[in-house]
């Protein structure tokens, strides 16, 4: 337990603004973006190795998730009708600008790949689009770590080393979960391996984030929002679900029922993790101690 922080403030009022991003939009977008990205990469690999059902599953998942994520993102804007203003400029200093272009490219590529796979029209173009989406996918799944870390919110900013890996692992597990639920048996084996690998990464990154490992200033305090309150509880549920899902995946082998149950657990874990990250950000912006104490310590040291 972190000792009670002694610090001055203006009548205990927050210094930072509470992020306007809210549930379920923001965590939903993080989940669907990750799912779409990893599913597109899975589809391309399945396609290259002749796993047709897994490839089709990946393509449809990538397209559906990209569409769902985009819808959530647009609905979260204060002026949704102005969404296209995102594509007025390309700004490397704005992860949201970079992300909008990646999402647009990825959405288009997954759409082309899925349309070709379903209709059988222009198969070579479809495969090329699928290969392209396999390249944009990992970027889409991990840039969101930069998106939220490039803020003044202490728990997000100081988590910039962990968040991309957390989202990468979670995305791997999420896409693997859909793949193994939809494609049983031998063809679904790579999806099951993705679940286990992804869950391992997700659990490792979340553990480091919770303990503040690698954070520079006052790590124990700055990582506190991930351990206490609603965010802390959600991260614990998420860990239990992810671990259970991964274990189920390992032992269940080719049982369809076990695969679906494990997939649901992994998906639940991925969603819990995303909601936890949002609420940790809210908590760390709302309490001035997370802003004042590390900065005051820095000033005193200097």
């Amino acid at each position, binding site marked *: 337990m972190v000792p009670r922080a002694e610090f001055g403030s203006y009548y205990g009022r927050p210094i930072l603004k509470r992020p306007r*991003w809210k549930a379920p939009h923001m965590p939903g977008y993080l989940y669907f973006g990750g799912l779409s990205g990893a599913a597109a990469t899975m589809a391309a690999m399945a396609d290259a190795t002749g796993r047709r059902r897994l490839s089709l599953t990946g393509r449809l998942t990538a397209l559906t998730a990209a569409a769902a994520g985009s819808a959530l993102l647009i609905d979260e804007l204060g002026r949704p009708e102005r969404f296209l203003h995102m594509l007025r400029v390309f700004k490397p200093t704005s992860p949201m600008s970079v992300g909008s272009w990646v999402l647009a490219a990825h959405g288009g590529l997954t759409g082309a790949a899925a349309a070709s796979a379903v209709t059988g029209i222009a198969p070579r173009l479809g495969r090329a689009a699928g290969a392209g989406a396999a390249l944009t996918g990992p970027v889409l799944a991990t840039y969101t*770590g930069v998106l939220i870390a490039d803020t003044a919110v202490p728990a997000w900013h100081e988590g910039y080393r962990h968040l991309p890996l957390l989202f990468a692992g979670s995305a791997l597990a999420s896409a693997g979960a859909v793949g193994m639920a939809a494609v049983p048996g031998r063809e679904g084996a790579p999806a099951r391996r*993705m679940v286990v690998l992804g869950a391992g990464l997700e659990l490792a990154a979340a553990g480091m984030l919770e303990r503040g490992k690698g954070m520079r200033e006052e790590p124990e305090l700055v990582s506190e929002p991930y351990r206490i309150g609603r965010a802390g509880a959600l991260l614990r549920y998420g860990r239990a679900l992810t671990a259970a899902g991964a274990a189920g995946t390992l032992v269940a082998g080719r049982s369809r029922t076990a695969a679906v149950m494990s997939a649901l657990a992994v998906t639940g874990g991925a969603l819990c993790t995303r909601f936890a990250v949002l609420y940790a950000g809210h908590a760390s912006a709302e309490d001035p101690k997370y802003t004042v104490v590390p900065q005051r310590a820095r000033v005193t040291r200097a």
Partner: protein
Amino acid sequence: MTNSLFGPLHDVAEEAGYADPPERAGFFTDTSVCIGCKACEVACKEWNAIPEDGYALTGMSYDNTGALGASTWRHVAFIEQSAPREVDQGDGASRWLMASDVCKHCTHAACLDVCPTGALFRTEFATVVVQQDICNGCAYCVSACPYGVIDRREDDGRAWKCTMCYDRLGDGMEPACAKACPTDSIQYGPLDELRERARERLGDLHDQGVTEARLYGEDENDGVGGDGAFFLLLDEPETYGLPPDPVVTTRDLPAMWKWAGGAAAALAGCVAVSFLGRR
């Protein structure tokens, strides 16, 4: 392009692409002469036609607005302190600290850097302004500001903050708050001149025994490259609701992209590994 993300930057407007811009202008807010009249808040609202904040006091002191926000571009803080000073003022001495807070118009403005639409832009006076016909309300700037200044107005969905009266500056006038301030607590002018004046005033106060007086935001070597609006304070910044040592978030942006690149490679690698082996 050196120091474009972090560090001192001498020609802010020129860096933003203006050829031969006017001298950088700014605010110097000397809180030691603020009387808490809120004329600045009222003048700002009047000139900029900002919606009202309600008339209820927050319950702490004489503050009715509480903090800067989408419809509060100047905020007067009232801090009641009992016997805070070492200087002998008799028994039960107490004092009021009053300070008119405003957008800092940072040299490295995180709100501007993260804005994905270009709605936030650097003016020729090196200040930071939101173009309201472009802002799509993504609220990225809200979370990026290390001072908690800019906010989204929920009824119209756009982000708003102090423009330093951009329209008045263009006509050679000073901003409405500075114009209305009866004690010259808010001063507007060329930033270099203001900094010099502020250092002089600080020296006078120190000579008078007000040793706790300090400048805040005037140092171009600080975490945001210096503020276009800086302050003379009589206590720690956090007492006024200001962060003690704010750092622009883009300082770490290159490192962030590196970590994300590593994570993306790890994701791709894990997928590839999963497909190894016999069918």
